[in-house]
Structures are given as structure tokens and as C-alpha cells.
């Protein structure tokens, strides 16, 4: 019973609103009834502790209750957002050695499927042997391969035992994101109310804030840019909103300042977290400042050659499909370049060449390799270019075997990439190069 403490806490909130989903309100008591329903269902479906169980869907009453029942049952859980491309989903299911799959659709109906998989991964086997629940989250790796981070779920949840303020919170981040999981458990362990939404455009979000008196909006800089551009904040009553927290990608300073100008009474707080380490406690110096204190009691930080390193007991056990990233003393290199001012950090972005398009990572090598397959392209360099809306966009500078009109080339590239790359990885800007794009050492030049 690894989360009995959480269920007890939830029980004490009995008739308070726990979640709102599609205009339906569920109290803590009703949500706990759902958890009980799932306990019975897991038994009926023959799902035993230790099995690896994928939940495919988005935040919904059943998805939340199932997640808790699975933790309680001692399962290793693989949340998979319904927005994942099919090919990636099946890859994740196989890397995680998934044995049972629950698919929850947009009306909250579910489908059960038992897969004939045997777990062989030593990290999974170890967790099974000590009867602890697990969580598998996928993050991007340096070659574009997604790394599977395995957490001990009991350890991850321990920090929610400390009582903290709870708000009416809109869940913006997805079900398979460390930030989404964090919002869920923070709210449920402190008696907060979660507003679950299925659409995430500025109008839908502003409407939900107005309709359900949302106080806390955890979101991304890209969304805030869209909010500014769409001017939807003018058409809805956002007076309930107290805090906007932002993370997942570097925040452009101009965006932060404009949000602060337009919504001066709302506190703007930066968050910092990684799928490998969880979400750190953080405190922004002020609403219009990018300087942030990060750490908290469970996390140690140090800066080596301008790069942030973190050590914590909350860290994952390891990757299922990659070597351990921790050094002998347990430090994790975040590869985030930072500036330091006393206790405050300013996060400058990744030290590597990773391009961050609206919070989604793009590895130049992957895009380059696809483009090089296209007839007539002799060389290509893919880089990121800063863009005030998406943070960065993908730019491809290509060398051609023979002259071609730019508009024709753009169309060929789009058509070719459509079936080979996620939309956000397809180059937005194409430039034709007339010179060589490598140095004397035959290293690619990324300007």
C-alpha cells in the first residue's frame, strides 16, 4: 500500500471538488470511488503488481483514477499521450516491455489489452523484485532516440507528503510529461481542484480560466506568445488567475515582459524540471525576471563550466535503453548553460545544438539525414533560428546538384518530409547555399 497516505489525504477532502472534466465536477469522494472501481477492474482483468502497464490517453477522470490504482497495486506505469504519432507509440510500448495496455478514449471509455511480453530489463526486474511501483517517462536523446527514464514511483511521490498551498489549477501539460504528472499529484495531495481540458489553444484556455475560476496556469513560453498574439486575454474574465508558471523551454525575455505588462497582477514563476529528475522547487526573483532560485531540500545543484549539474534522491533509477547518465557521485549533467548570481540562476539554453521548437526538441542530425535522401540535395546543414513565437524554428541550408527555384525546392522538401518527420521537425525556412558548409577539419559549420 505505497500510497495509502495519499488516499487518506484525499479522503479527508471528501466533498471538495477534485477535478472538472468536460463541465462535469467530481469530488474527492467520487474520485476515490473511481479508484476503488479500478482496483476491482484490475483484479478482474488479472493485472497483478509488478506488471508493466501502459495508459494511452489524456487527462480524464478514468485516466487519473487508473493511474492511482496502478500505483497502489504496485505496477510500473507508462503514460502515453494520445497525441503521440502511432509509430512512436508502438516503439515506446516495446521499449518499456509493456505487458498490459489500457486505452482511454475522448469520452473516457476504456479498452483493455494483455500483451504477451516478458520483462527482461534489469532495472525493471529489480523494481519488480522489491515490489515498488514505477513510472516510465520518455525524453529525447542526443541522437534523436527517445530515452526511457524509469522512476521508483513511491520515491517520486514522497515530496507530496509535505502540505503546500493548493490552487484551482488548469492542467496544460500532457499526461506523459513530468510536469503534467507533477501538477496532478501536487493538486490531489493538497486538496486542490484540477481543470482538465482537451483543447489547448488560447481561446479554449482563457474560456476555461473564466468558466472555472482557474487560479494557477502552468504553461510554456510558446503558449504565452500565442496568447499575446491572439489577444484572447481581452475577451475573457481572467481575474481569478493568480499565478502563471512557465517552463519546458527557455523563455524569451520580451515575451515575459509583455505578459507582465498586460497581466500585471499575476505572478509569473519559472519552473525547472527534467524527466530524469522530476520538478525542482523554484522561486523567480520577480515576475519580470528570468533569474530563478532552484533546488529545495531534495536537490543539490552545482555549476561546472557554466553547465548546471544536479544531484538528488528523487532521480530516476536509470534509462531502460541507454547507459546511466550519472557520475560516480550521482551528479546529473543537465547540459543546460546557466549564468549564476548568488543563489539565482539564469537558464540560457542547451549547450548542444538541439533546436527547441515550441518546447519540442529537434536534433539537427535527424533532419539532415532525411534531407540528404532527397534527390538533388548534395549537402545540408540544419540549425535553429530564434523565433519570437515558437522559440526557435528549423532552418535548412542546402547545396544543390543543379539550380532549382526556391519555391519548387520548398514544395519538394515539404512533400518528402511529411511522411518522414514530425511536423515540428520539418524545416520552416530553406536557404540555398553556394559554398561549402564544412570546416577544414570536415566538421559541419553551425552558424
Amino acid at each position, binding site marked *: 500500500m505505497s500510497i495509502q497516505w495519499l488516499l487518506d489525504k484525499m479522503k479527508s477532502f471528501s466533498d471538495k471538488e477534485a477535478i472538472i472534466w468536460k463541465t462535469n465536477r467530481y469530488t474527492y469522494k467520487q474520485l476515490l470511488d473511481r479508484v476503488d472501481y479500478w482496483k476491482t477492474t484490475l483484479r478482474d482483468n488479472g493485472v497483478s503488481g509488478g506488471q508493466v502497464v501502459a495508459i494511452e490517453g489524456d487527462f480524464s477522470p478514468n485516466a487519473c483514477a487508473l493511474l492511482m490504482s496502478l500505483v497502489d497495486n504496485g505496477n510500473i506505469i507508462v503514460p502515453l499521450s494520445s497525441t503521440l504519432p502511432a509509430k512512436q507509440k508502438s516503439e515506446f510500448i516495446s521499449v518499456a516491455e509493456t505487458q498490459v495496455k489500457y486505452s482511454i478514449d475522448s469520452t473516457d471509455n476504456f479498452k483493455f489489452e494483455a500483451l504477451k511480453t516478458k520483462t527482461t530489463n534489469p532495472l525493471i526486474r529489480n523494481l519488480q523484485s522489491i515490489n515498488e511501483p514505477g513510472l516510465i517517462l520518455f525524453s529525447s536523446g542526443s541522437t534523436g532516440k527517445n530515452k526511457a527514464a524509469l522512476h521508483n514511483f513511491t520515491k517520486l511521490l514522497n515530496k507530496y507528503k509535505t502540505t503546500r498551498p493548493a490552487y484551482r489549477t488548469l492542467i496544460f501539460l500532457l499526461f506523459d510529461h513530468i510536469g503534467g504528472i507533477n501538477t496532478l499529484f501536487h493538486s490531489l495531495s493538497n486538496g486542490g481542484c484540477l481543470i482538465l481540458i482537451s483543447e489547448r*489553444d488560447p481561446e479554449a484556455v482563457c474560456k476555461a480560466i473564466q468558466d472555472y475560476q482557474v487560479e494557477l496556469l502552468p504553461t510554456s513560453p510558446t503558449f504565452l506568445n500565442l496568447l499575446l*498574439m491572439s489577444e*484572447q486575454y481581452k475577451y475573457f474574465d481572467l481575474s481569478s488567475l493568480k499565478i502563471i508558471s512557465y517552463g519546458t523551454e527557455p523563455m524569451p525575455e520580451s515575451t515575459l515582459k509583455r505578459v507582465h505588462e498586460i497581466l500585471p497582477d499575476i505572478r509569473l514563476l519559472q519552473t525547472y524540471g527534467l524527466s530524469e529528475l522530476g520538478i525542482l522547487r523554484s522561486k523567480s526573483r520577480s515576475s519580470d525576471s528570468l533569474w530563478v532560485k532552484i533546488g529545495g531540500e531534495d536537490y543539490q545543484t552545482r555549476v561546472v563550466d557554466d553547465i548546471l549539474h544536479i544531484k538528488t534522491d528523487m532521480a530516476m533509477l536509470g534509462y531502460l535503453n541507454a547507459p546511466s547518465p550519472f557520475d560516480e557521485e550521482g551528479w546529473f549533467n543537465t547540459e543546460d548553460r546557466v549564468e549564476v548570481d548568488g543563489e539565482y540562476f539564469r537558464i540560457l539554453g542547451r549547450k548542444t545544438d538541439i533546436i527547441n521548437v515550441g518546447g519540442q526538441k529537434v536534433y539537427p542530425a535527424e533532419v539532415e539525414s532525411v534531407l540528404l535522401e532527397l534527390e538533388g540535395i548534395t549537402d545540408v546543414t540544419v540549425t535553429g533560428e530564434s523565433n519570437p*513565437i515558437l522559440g526557435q524554428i528549423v532552418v535548412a541550408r542546402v547545396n544543390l546538384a543543379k539550380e532549382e527555384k526556391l519555391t519548387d525546392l520548398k514544395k519538394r522538401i515539404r512533400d518528402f518530409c511529411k511522411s518522414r518527420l514530425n511536423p515540428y521537425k520539418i524545416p520552416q525556412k530553406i536557404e540555398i547555399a553556394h559554398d561549402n558548409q564544412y570546416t577544414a577539419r570536415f566538421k559541419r559549420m553551425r552558424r
Partner: protein
Amino acid sequence: MAIDRQKVLETVYASIEMINEDREDKESRLELKEETRLVGRQSKLDSLKFVGLIIDIEQRLADELDIEISLTDEKAMSQARSPFRNVQSLVDYICSLEV
């Protein structure tokens, strides 16, 4: 130098047609008219497509009309009324820029 509004409008339409080419479903195509919304929920563009459209317009303006401008700089982003509401406001904004 004054900018020819009609030519700018045609350039914006050419970029919209590029987006439409990728859309088999007629419903999801953008209409070639000045009232067509570019951002917000009534727009048929997600953020990626929207940025793609703006970049394509910038490139066409430079290549075809010799107008070198940035549509997503500080100035454009800090207008009291967003220039990206619809085709008309975007064309007006481009024409208002000193080249």
C-alpha cells in the same frame, strides 16, 4: 518608397495557397479573402503552420518584391492591435512599414 498594396496582398495569397496545397480536405483550407483569420481559434492554422506562413510571406516579399522586412520582430509583436488578426491587418501592417 510606397508599397503596392495589391502586390503585397497577392504575395500573402500565394503563401496561403502554399499552405492549402498540403490540405486535401477542402474544409481545412484557408479562404483567399481579406477577412480570413490567421491567429486565434477561428483560424485554421496551428502555431507551426502560422509561423510557416509568416516565414514564407517574408521570403516571397524579399524574393519577388524586394521588400526586406521581419514580421516577427519586437515591433510587430508589440503593436497595440496585433497585425496577425487577419489577412487585411497583416497586409496593412506590411504596407505601413518603411522600406
